[in-house]
């Protein structure tokens, strides 16, 4: 209690200071933006800001880089306490959490429908930022997923790139066993305290924790069941090098400890940062569940920009997002090649950068592939309780590995979730 109180006080003091500083410039507008990944959305937003300042010299940008959890915590604290002066003008929110913020803090975000032409964006991105017919954000990157694998390890185990095209998860597990037998490397890595893998497999099976209306749908959910069983099989087969956190997870595949990883396209930049592994990587569509409606495409993460309704620079901020993110196709080519950001503006996909083959991935047409897969990602309703369900799933998955029947596990998840989401 004491601990929390003091943290809260520190936070408030910090927010108050930030508020004072933000209030200083009067008319030479400065737009403050909160986001979280210095190599990705922070760098991209700086690029966007520079482009806008070229045509609008009176507008400058202050892109603030926090950890993602800190952005969410600060945003939530400021919105709840009503100290809007502490808030930035634009904030980045992960797609899973969008509806949560929009619904639980009504009036906190500025609607942008009518000012932005949303027809040009991937429909699932627009839908997740719509409440009561009003659209509230600027769609940003997609988290379309792929299977990133080490060509060299797979080759040693006797597999060619086409052996990984359009496979099922069961086949993936077989390949994984062979890879470990031949190379001594684990097939993949996973953060066992994180529900990311469950979400990837579940969405590829055209399912989610909730049905299309946002109601809890855990019992008899074939996609979730498949996701849990697949992971249990992988754990039992010893295919997974367990990771204790994000850094540990990234280290496992960047240091060559594992032969493959299934994750969002935004990891491309991190993988390509290992220049000595050039040519050793390849990409393939993610494996598929053996259930009707399942596809080789899914999504993990992805985020969008939101303008705070309390912002003094609201109109300028919306205009900025609209000018760059909804119209500047050249910008999308640049962030794709430099940062590996697959945007959700459909028109950007016809650009030259999407056609290029990438020597790092052995000459695969990486971006063309990802944008093809993006079109196949099943649209699901993320609902407003993703974190709660993630917690329930990761808490109950070990029981499945220990041999508890899958229906009983689903029931346990359902029961825990029901109490959490009231």
């Amino acid at each position, binding site marked *: 209690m004491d601990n929390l109180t003091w943290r809260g006080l520190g936070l408030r003091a910090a927010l108050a200071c930030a508020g004072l500083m933000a209030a200083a410039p009067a008319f030479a507008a400065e737009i403050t933006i909160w986001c979280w990944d210095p190599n990705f959305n922070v760098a991209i937003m700086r690029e966007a800001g520079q482009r806008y300042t070229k045509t609008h010299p009176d507008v400058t940008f202050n892109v603030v880089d926090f950890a993602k959890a800190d952005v969410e915590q600060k945003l939530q604290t400021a919105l709840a306490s009503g100290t809007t002066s502490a808030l930035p003008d634009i904030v980045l929110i992960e797609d899973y959490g969008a509806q949560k913020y929009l619904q639980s803090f009504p009036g906190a975000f500025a609607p942008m429908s009518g000012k932005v032409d949303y027809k040009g964006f991937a429909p699932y991105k627009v839908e997740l930022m719509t409440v009561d017919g009003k659209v509230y954000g600027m769609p940003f990157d997609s988290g379309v997923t792929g299977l990133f694998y080490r060509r060299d390890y797979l080759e040693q185990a006797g597999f060619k790139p086409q052996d990984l095209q359009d496979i099922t998860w069961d086949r993936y597990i077989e390949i994984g066993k062979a890879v470990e037998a031949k190379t001594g490397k684990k097939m993949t890595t996973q953060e066992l305290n994180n529900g990311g893998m469950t979400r990837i497999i579940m969405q590829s099976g055209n399912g989610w924790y909730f049905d299309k209306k946002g109601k809890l749908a855990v019992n008899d959910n074939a996609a979730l069941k498949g996701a849990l069983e697949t992971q249990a099989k992988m754990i039992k087969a010893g295919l997974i090098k367990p990771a*204790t956190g994000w850094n540990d997870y990234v280290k496992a595949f960047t240091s060559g400890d594992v032969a493959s990883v299934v994750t969002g396209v935004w990891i491309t930049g991190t993988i390509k940062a290992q220049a000595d592994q050039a040519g050793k990587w390849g990409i393939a569509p993610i494996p598929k569940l053996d259930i009707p409606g399942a596809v080789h495409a899914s999504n993990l993460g992805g985020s969008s920009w939101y303008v705070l309704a309390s912002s003094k620079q609201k109109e300028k901020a919306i205009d900025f997002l609209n000018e760059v993110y909804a119209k500047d196709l050249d910008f999308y080519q640049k962030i794709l090649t430099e940062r590996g950001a697959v945007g959700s503006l459909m028109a950007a996909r016809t650009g030259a950068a999407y056609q290029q083959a990438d020597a790092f991935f052995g000459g695969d047409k990486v971006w063309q592939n990802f944008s093809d897969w993006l079109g196949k990602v099943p649209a699901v309703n993320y609902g407003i309780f993703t974190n709660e369900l993630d*917690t329930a799933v990761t808490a109950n998955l070990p029981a499945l590995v220990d041999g508890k029947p899958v229906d009983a596990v689903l029931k346990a998840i359902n029961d825990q979730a029901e109490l959490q989401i009231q």
Partner: protein
Amino acid sequence: MAMTGSGTRAGGLRRYYDVNGWLFVAPALLLIGTLMLYPIVSSLMLSVYSGRGMMMRFVGAGNLVRLYSDPVFWTALSNTIVFFVIQVPIMIVLALVMANALNDPRLRFSGLFRTAIFLPCITSLVAYSILFKSMFSVDGIVNRTMMAIGVMDQPISWLTDPFWAKVLVIIAITWRWTGYNMIFYLASLQNLDRSVDEAARIDGVPAWGRFFFLTVPMLKPVILFTTITSTIGTLQLFDEVYSLTEGTGGPSNATLTLSLYIYNLTFRFMPNFGYAATLSYVIVVLVALLSFLQFYAVRERR
């Protein structure tokens, strides 16, 4: 005596002292009022509301009903109790033994050892948690060392196995806080009358006997104090588990503590400030109960 007299001069003097006294305490009262009392009262009021973010409605005792049927709350509570029931005695005994050893006048370099043992408790909570996380990862230095010297042949998955994750948290907080408690013991050991110990030694009482039947009873008030403060500290355990598990309290909620659950309800989940406030009052009640126990035990001694 003159102050209680009925003369005007005395009355004026009293008012003079009253006004000045209040002026002196006013800044402190104001700060305590706005920074302590107001949040306490306001969170009490918050705890009868529930809802999503700012969409709160009055539920009366609804949060208590929810609390009762919330399995995650019971998991968090039992984890918290396991942590203090197992960790506090281990730490207290360790601290006592170390203090006693350091108090031996024949020990050389005792200042060095004292500093080394005390040092962990001035390191940053987050820094040491992250260090522990890396040391105890599957291919971390701890597993490697233990395998190299042949203590075990399979690496322990410290952070992904529910049992070992609890063990790791206990190891971590013991490392962090043993030195802190030891300093209390050392200070009071140095205040003890040496002649009692000497007399016992001349009478032929062995070292362990002097420790258990002389030193420990004489340290009883300090032991009581450290036990209660450690218990309260463990009840509020947050930073370590947050950093070790990246905020999830995993695996399988095995390291979820009450404070971490409050944090999750406020910042990770759909924000429900009312329910989180109710939970924080559970900690208040537990702390109050334990403090009452402390007063009770002290009174009984006299």
